C-alpha cells in the first residue's frame, strides 16, 4: 500500500474514499444488533460518513472544531471520526466510563463545541455538566431509546443529522469533496487524552501523518491484508484502539467488528473469530484462569488428555510456531493434539483464525504467554505509548523472548539515556500536548526524542527490556536496587493474586499489599468447603493468607536466584480488605496502580508493615458505580514471608 501514500492518501477521509473505490464491496464494519451480525461495506461506510459529515456542517460544525465522542465501541461512533476530519474538525474520543467531572475536564480543555454520544446514559451525563461547559453547543445521540421526552433543541438524533446531511449534500454539490481535498497529512487528526497516572489527563495531539505512517509501517511489517478481521472492544479513547481499529483498518482495508455489549465480548469473539487481535495481559490471564477452572470440573479422562497434550505443547509448541527443528514423533503427536485439544480449545476461545495477536500495557506472565504460543497462536508483546502513536517495539516473528518487548518497530529509533531511561524517535511522534507547553518540553526534546519514563536496556541482539517506570526504580537503605513493578508483576503472575503494590524505596526492606483474585480464590475456597460472605471476609481468612504466603515465598525464591535483586525480597505483606478500584481513584482507567493515592490512603497500613505489629485495623471508603459511598471496617493480619539469604540461593536451588 506504500504506493497509495504517494498518491496523496494522507488523511482518513481520503483513505476512506480510496477504500470505497478499491474494495467497495468488502466488509468494513460489523455490529451485532438484535442478535444478528449487521455488516456495512466500505462503500456503505463512505456514504454514512459523508451524510454525517454534511449533517455536522449543516448544524454549523466548522473547520478546526472539536467533536467529542463518548460511548462503547459502535460503528456509528467510529464513523463520526472520519466525518469530523472530512469537514476539517478534530475528533476527541473520551472514556465512556469516566464520571461527569472527569468528562467535564476533558470537554472543557479540548474546547468541544459538538459531541456525538451513544445513548441516554451519556446524554444525561453531559446534561448534568452542560452548565459548566459554555462552549458545548450540540449533542448528537445514536440510540433514541428513552430520549422521547427530551425536548432540548440542542439534542439531535444521529439518523436525523444524517438525513439533514443528505439534503445539505444534495443542495451543495461538491461541498464534501472540496472539504476533504482541503485536508492534509500535517493536520491534527485526533486528540487522545492520556489516562493520567499522575495528575490531570493530557491531550496528546496526533496528526494524520503520525497515525497513518505508523499504522502502515507496522501493518506492512506484519503482513496484514484486507482479508483480516479485528474485534474492537477496548475503549475508543485509548490510542491503541484508534490505531488497530481505525488507522490500520483504513490503511489496509480490513473489517472491524464491534461487540453487542461489553458483557458479550467473549461470545462475540467466538462468533467473529478475528484474525488480528489485541488484548491486555489481564484479559489473556482471565481467559486462561477460566479455562483452567473449567478443566478442573471436567471428567478425569478429559483432564488427563488435556494435561498430556498441554505438556507436549509446552515442550514443542513454541518451537513449531517459530519454525525451529522438532523431532518427527513430537510433530505427529502435536498434530493429534491439535485435533483433540488445541483446535477445540482455540475454537471455544474464538482464536481459531487468529494470525496475529498483540498484548501490551504491562508485563504478561511467562506462563500465560507461553500457554497461548504453545497452542500455535502467534501472540506477541509490543511496547508503545500514546506519544508514539502506539508502536515503539514489537517482538519479531520467530524470535520471541518472553523477558523482552522486542525490537524497534519499522521507522523507530531507540536510545537509552544515561539515567537508564528509554528514549525514542519515530514518524509517530506526537505534535504536542494541547495547551501544555511545559509538559511537551519536558517529554519531547528539541530534536524530536521522546522520554518514555521507563527504565530499560537494549540487549546484545537489539531487544529492548523494560524494568520499571524510571521514576519508580528506587533503592533500599542498604543500596539494593528496588524495582516495584517488577516485583508486583511477579506476584501478579500467580492466578490467586490480582493486584499487588510493593514498597521499599528508602526503607530497610520490601513490603507488599496484595489483592487476591476473587474468582480464583473463591473457586479454591469452594473446593475446600470454605464458606465466606464476600471479598472482605474471604480476604481475611487465615487459609487464604497461607495460600498467598506460598506465592510470596515462591517469588522470593525466584528473586534469590538473581544477584542484583536478591536483596529486594518481600519481607512482610498483607492482603487488602478491598479490591483496588478505578472508581476509588486507586487505579487509572487502564487499571494501573496510582501509587501516590495508595500511599496516602493506606498510610497506617504501610506504617504497620514497617513495625512489628502483626495486625492492623482499617476503615476504608468505597465508591459505588452510581457515586454513593460506603465504609468498610476490617482487621488485617500482617505476615512475614520466607526470605532466602542470597548466599543460600544456590543450595536452595
Amino acid at each position: 500500500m506504500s504506493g497509495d501514500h504517494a498518491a496523496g492518501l494522507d488523511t482518513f477521509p481520503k483513505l476512506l474514499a480510496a477504500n470505497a473505490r478499491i474494495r467497495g464491496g468488502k466488509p468494513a464494519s460489523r455490529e451485532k444488533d438484535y442478535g444478528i451480525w449487521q455488516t456495512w461495506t466500505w462503500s456503505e461506510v463512505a456514504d454514512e460518513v459523508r451524510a454525517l459529515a454534511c449533517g455536522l456542517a449543516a448544524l454549523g460544525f466548522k473547520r478546526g472544531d472539536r467533536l467529542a465522542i463518548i460511548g462503547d465501541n459502535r460503528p456509528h461512533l467510529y464513523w463520526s471520526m472520519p466525518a469530523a476530519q472530512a469537514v476539517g474538525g478534530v475528533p476527541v474520543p473520551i472514556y465512556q466510563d469516566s464520571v461527569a467531572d472527569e468528562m467535564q475536564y476533558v470537554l472543557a480543555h479540548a474546547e468541544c463545541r459538538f459531541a456525538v454520544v451513544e445513548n441516554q446514559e451519556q446524554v444525561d451525563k453531559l446534561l448534568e455538566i452542560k452548565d459548566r461547559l459554555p462552549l458545548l453547543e450540540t449533542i448528537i445521540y445514536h440510540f433514541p431509546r428513552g430520549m422521547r421526552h427530551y425536548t432540548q433543541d440542542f439534542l439531535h438524533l444521529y439518523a436525523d443529522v444524517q438525513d439533514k446531511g443528505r439534503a445539505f449534500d444534495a443542495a451543495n454539490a461538491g461541498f464534501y469533496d472540496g472539504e476533504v481535498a482541503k485536508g492534509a497529512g500535517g493536520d491534527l487528526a485526533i486528540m487522545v487524552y492520556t489516562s493520567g497516572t499522575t495528575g490531570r489527563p493530557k491531550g496528546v495531539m496526533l496528526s494524520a501523518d503520525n497515525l497513518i505512517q505508523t499504522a502502515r509501517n507496522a501493518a506492512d511489517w506484519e503482513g496484514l491484508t484486507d482479508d483480516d478481521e479485528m474485534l474492537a472492544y477496548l475503549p475508543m479513547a485509548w490510542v491503541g484502539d484508534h490505531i488497530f481499529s481505525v488507522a490500520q483498518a483504513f490503511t489496509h482495508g480490513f473489517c472491524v467488528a464491534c461487540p453487542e455489549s461489553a458483557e458479550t465480548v467473549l461470545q462475540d469473539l467466538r462468533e467473529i473469530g478475528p484474525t488480528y487481535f489485541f488484548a491486555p495481559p489481564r484479559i489473556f490471564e482471565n481467559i486462561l484462569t477460566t479455562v483452567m477452572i473449567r478443566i478442573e470440573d471436567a471428567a478425569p479422562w478429559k483432564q488427563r488428555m488435556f494435561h498430556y497434550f498441554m505438556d507436549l505443547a509446552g515442550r514443542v509448541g513454541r518451537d513449531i510456531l517459530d519454525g525451529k527443528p522438532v523431532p518427527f514423533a513430537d510433530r505427529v503427536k502435536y498434530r493429534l493434539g491439535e485435533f483433540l485439544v488445541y483446535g477445540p480449545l482455540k475454537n471455544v476461545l474464538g482464536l481459531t483464525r487468529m494470525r496475529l495477536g498483540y498484548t501490551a500495557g504491562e508485563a504478561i506472565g511467562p506462563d500465560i504467554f507461553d500457554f497461548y504460543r504453545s497452542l500455535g497462536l502467534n501472540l506477541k508483546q509490543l511496547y508503545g505509548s500514546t506519544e508514539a502513536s502506539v508502536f515503539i517495539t514489537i517482538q519479531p516473528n520467530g524470535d520471541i523472548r518472553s523477558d523482552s518487548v522486542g525490537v524497534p518497530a519499522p521507522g523507530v529509533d531507540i536510545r537509552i539515556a544515561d539515567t537508564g531511561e528509554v528514549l525514542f524517535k519515530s514518524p509517530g511522534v506526537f505534535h504536542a500536548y494541547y495547551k501544555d507547553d511545559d509538559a511537551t518540553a519536558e517529554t519531547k526534546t528539541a530534536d524530536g526524542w521522546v522520554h518514555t519514563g521507563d527504565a530499560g536496556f537494549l540487549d546484545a541482539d537489539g531487544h529492548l527490556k523494560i524494568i520499571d517506570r524510571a521514576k519508580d526504580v528506587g533503592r533500599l537503605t542498604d543500596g539494593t536496587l528496588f524495582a516495584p513493578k517488577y516485583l508486583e508483576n511477579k506476584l501478579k503472575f500467580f492466578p490467586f493474586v490480582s493486584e499487588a503494590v510493593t514498597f521499599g524505596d528508602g526503607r530497610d526492606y520490601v513490603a507488599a499489599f496484595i489483592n487476591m483474585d476473587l474468582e480464583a480464590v473463591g473457586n479454591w475456597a469452594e473446593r475446600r468447603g470454605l464458606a465466606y460472605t464476600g471479598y472482605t471476609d474471604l480476604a481475611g481468612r487465615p487459609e487464604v493468607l497461607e495460600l498467598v504466603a506460598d506465592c510470596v515465598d515462591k517469588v522470593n525464591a525466584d528473586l534469590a536466584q538473581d544477584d542484583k535483586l536478591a536483596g529486594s525480597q518481600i519481607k512482610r505483606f498483607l492482603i487488602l480488605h478491598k479490591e483496588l478500584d478505578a472508581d476509588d481513584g486507586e487505579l487509572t482507567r487502564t487499571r494501573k496502580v496510582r501509587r501516590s493515592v495508595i500511599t496516602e490512603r493506606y498510610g497506617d497500613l504501610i506504617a504497620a508493615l514497617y513495625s512489628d505489629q502483626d495486625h492492623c485495623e482499617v476503615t476504608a471508603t468505597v465508591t459505588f458505580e452510581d457515586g454513593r459511598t460506603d465504609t468498610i471496617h476490617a482487621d488485617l493480619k500482617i505476615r512475614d514471608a520466607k526470605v532466602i539469604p542470597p548466599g543460600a540461593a544456590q543450595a536452595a536451588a
Partner: protein
Amino acid sequence: MPDGPQTPTGRVIGDVIMKVENVSLSFGGVRALDNVSFDVREHEILAIIGPNGAGKSSMLNCINGFYHPQEGAITYKGKRRDTAKPYEAAEEGIARTFQNIALFKGMSTLDNIMTGRGLKMKRNLFWQALYYGPALKEELEHRAKAEEVIDFLEIEAIRKTPVGRLPYGLQKRVELGRALAAEPDLLLLDEPMAGMNHEEKEDMVRYILDVNDEYGTTIVLIEHDMSVVMDISDRVVVLDYGKKLAAGTPDEVKRNQDVIDAYLGVSHD
C-alpha cells in the same frame, strides 16, 4: 375521559381498562379478599400495597384468572372476566410475573422468553415440527420480537445461558422479559424487586418505567419497598386483612391515618 391527567414524564392516563367491583374470595373459613373495589386506567402504574397476608397476591391471581372470586365482578376492556381461565387472560393481553420466580430453569434465557410468544404462534404442531415454510417464517418473526425484548432489557450477554445458572436479580429480569414477549396491554408484577440489592432495584425500576413509557403498557404491581412504590406509581391501593383500606395518589395514601397505623408506621426521628 379520553385525555386524562398527565404524568410528569408526559404520559396521558387513559380510560378505565379494568374494573374490580366488590370482589370477595374465601378459602374455606379464610376471607382472603373482602368486598374490594378499585379500577385500573390505561397507561397508569398502579401499586397494591399492604402487610403480609393482606390479599395482594390473591388479588392479582383473581385478575389473571388463577382464582375465581366467589362474589363480585372483574370487568376487563368492557367484558366480565371473573370466571375466565389464566390462558384466556393471557390471550386478552394480561401478562404477569410471579413472587417466586416461575421460569424453566433448564432452558436458556432466549427459550424462556420465546415461551412468552407461545400464544401468538398460529401454526399447528405439524408445521412446527416440520420447521419449514410458514412455520419457519413465523418462528423468525417471533425470534425477532424476542430479540427486541432482550435488547430492551439489556440481557444480551445471558441470551444462551440456562436460567437456573443466573443470579436472582437477572432471573427476575428474564421473567419480566417473558411477560413482555407476550406484548401485554396489562402487566401484573408480583413483587418484582423482592430480594434485590439497591443497584438491581434501581435497574428494575428503570425497566418498569421504560416499559410503561415506551410501550404504554398498564402496570399493576405489588411491592413492599415504599420508596419505590411512592416514586413510580400513579396511584396506590392499600389492602389490609383482605379489605381495601385506602386508594389514591401516593401522597394521599402516605397521609392517610389508617394506612400509617396498619402498614407504614411512624418514623422514629
